[in-house]
């Protein structure tokens, strides 16, 4: 006997439970449902499409690996965003290390080929197309403040949820939000004044 049901109508928490019991289509449904949010969050974090894509992939791989560890204490989306944030952080830490390593290598060789330069430039053009004003503004914030404001303003998450996702105290969330708001307010103010000057 088979029971037909529409996975589209089932909530995330149930779907992940189905997946841990062997319903692989439930996972596909979860991916379909959250890929946009995850990619967007990664993009805010990483600020380029390639890294965002990598982070998205890694997030879902971790989701598959850790599906069983989801106990339903928090909302599934909160849990998934936490994974995303951790993935992004991990990637950035690795990147920093890589950059420093490659910088040392460059120092040693002191050669930058034309091809590399071209790639760099073309990448930047592509990124510029994809990013918007908001993203440019957010880029001016330090990473830890940026993610808080993204989660709060773009994802409409409550302070409590943000503290769960980033695994930081509620007070820290509050202070980070007010700090980042302050910075952004000042930047916007400056831009306005500059516009008036023109």
């Amino acid at each position, binding site marked *: 006997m088979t029971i037909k049901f529409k996975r589209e109508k089932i909530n995330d928490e149930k779907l992940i439970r189905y997946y841990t019991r062997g319903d692989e289509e439930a996972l596909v449904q979860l991916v379909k449902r959250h890929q946009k949010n995850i990619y967007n969050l990664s993009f805010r974090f990483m600020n380029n499409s390639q890294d965002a894509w990598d982070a998205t992939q890694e997030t879902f791989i971790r989701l598959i690996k850790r599906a069983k560890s989801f106990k339903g204490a928090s909302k599934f989306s909160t849990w998934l965003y936490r994974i995303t944030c951790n993935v992004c952080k991990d990637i950035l830490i690795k990147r920093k290390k890589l950059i420093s390593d490659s910088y040392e290598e460059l120092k040693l060789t002191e050669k930058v080929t034309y091809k590399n330069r071209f790639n760099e430039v073309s990448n930047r053009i592509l990124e510029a197309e994809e990013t918007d004003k908001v993203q440019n503004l957010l880029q001016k914030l330090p990473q830890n403040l940026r993610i808080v404001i993204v989660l709060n303003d773009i994802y*409409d998450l409550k302070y409590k949820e943000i503290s769960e996702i980033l695994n930081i105290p509620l007070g820290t969330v509050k202070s980070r939000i007010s700090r980042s708001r302050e910075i952004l307010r000042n930047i916007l103010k400056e831009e306005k004044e500059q516009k008036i000057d023109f």
Partner: protein
Amino acid sequence: MIPEYVDSELSINQNKKVEEHIKTCPDCKKYFNEIKGVKEFISSSAFYDLSFDKAKKLAKLVREKNIEIHPTLIPKPIWSRWQFISIISVLAILLLGVLLLQFYKPLYTFHKMESAELAEDLTKGLSTTEEAVSKEFGNGEDTVEGEVKDEEVAEAEQSVVTEEGIVERELITIKPGVLVPQPIITVSENDYTQNYIDEFFTNQKSEERISTEETIEQILPIDTNQVLLIKDDYDKILYKSIKSKVLQFPHFDENLKILESEIYKYLTGQEQLPEKFPLLIFSVEKARFEGKDAFIISGIGPGKDFEKDKLTKQFVCVIEAGTNKMLHLKTID
């Protein structure tokens, strides 16, 4: 508190306080508007989404990784619970089947036993009648008629045995007044229809089940004092009924009496019955016919050229039990 107010993270009381304060304090109102502007600006941002190709890639990746990483993570498929139930149910059905078979077997053997007993009874009956016949003949040896009959029967017996070579076939002569073996009545629960009987009858003909036609022809013309009990190759017993003997059958005597005359009339087309007429009844079967209790009788009788006294017409007829009304009659030449 204003950023929290903007994010609507305050309690109702705190909200009220901030609202009242903003109304009175122009600096705070300005600050509130700016913060609100920042929030609106950020939340107005475009939502980055995966391109179609990347989404497709991701789905593929998830499916593949799923298999690569996770064979152990997947605990038990949902259907495993059903699997258990289904195995149990299959076993239960098998057990039930075996039990039913156990119950069925004795019934089957009982049925066999019954037929075996019937056969025994028949043979017993035969032996007793044979004895009776020999006694009868022993008594009536002096009469010429008896001698003639005896010779005739002997001839017939010889011809049957030599030409056909079938041991099971028996030929018995019985004088009137001697008890005849039990009538051949098979009881069936079948509800026959006219079509079924017609079909069955023609099949029987085509399969040459009634293969004794020739031997009957050899025996005939039948002495009316003779009762023939012949087993054919299929252990089907052919019984020669004679008007005088019919009376000795319990339950069926009246029925058969009327029946035989009716069948005879029908077969020959004659209104007046001769005093003695030859008619072979192969079987009498009690059955349901088109919803009525009936006897299905099959046999062979004379055709319209009855003067030759040869049995040429096979027939099967259905007579309603109780009323003796003929429901169906079919003949084949």
